């Protein structure tokens, strides 16, 4: 079965740089979520999109923005990167907000 695809899998950036993370949901899933997981922590919700419209917003910094495109893929844009942004970023998708299936994550390291 098709799974959620995230790219890139690993990303190294310097402070103050910009990063773009991409997510391709499971086919026919209408909702995409972004989570951030710091070392030794549980995943924290950032933002979600339902049918290409922002649906909910969590503790997402103003430096971050996201959108969902017409083909349902989503991108998380992160600017003015800080050392504290180093984390594992998950994208998940679901159909009608039911159970969420997670991608493999993008490991972002800010140096």
């Amino acid at each position, binding site marked *: 079965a098709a799974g959620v695809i995230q790219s890139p899998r690993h990303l190294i950036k310097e402070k103050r740089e910009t990063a773009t993370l991409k997510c391709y949901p499971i086919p026919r899933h209408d*909702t995409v*979520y972004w*989570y951030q*997981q710091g070392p030794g*922590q*549980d*995943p924290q*919700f950032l933002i*979600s*999109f*339902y049918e290409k419209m922002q*649906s*909910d917003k*969590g503790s997402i910094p103003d430096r971050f923005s996201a959108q969902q495109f017409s083909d349902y893929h989503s991108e998380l844009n992160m600017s003015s990167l800080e050392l504290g942004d180093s984390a*594992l970023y*998950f994208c*998940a998708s*679901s159909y*009608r*907000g*039911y*159970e*969420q*299936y*997670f991608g*493999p*994550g993008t*490991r972002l390291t800010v140096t």
Partner: protein
Amino acid sequence: AQTVTQSQPEMSVQEAETVTLSCTYDTSENNYYLFWYKQPPSRQMILVIRQEAYKQQNATENRFSVNFQKAAKSFSLKISDSQLGDTAMYFCAFIPYTGTASKLTFGTGTRLQVTL
């Protein structure tokens, strides 16, 4: 707001034995779902089992089963015949049933080590 509590930071079990991971939650919602996710060393988040709050019957998936006590707001995970591949962090998670785009609220996780 919902909260999910996992009071066991770490647990250990011998291969082939049974282990139970605890989870409690707090919510004012009447309709919701509960999940257990597994995160092995690869860091992939894998859905293990789900429970709909309106169902009284406890969910089972092969060696994994839950004990769902709605009145007590308790949702424990039992792993039978533990295998080395079960070694992982296990997260309990809650989601209210709104029909669309609800976020998962996770507990802090229980690290399970399966030993020989």
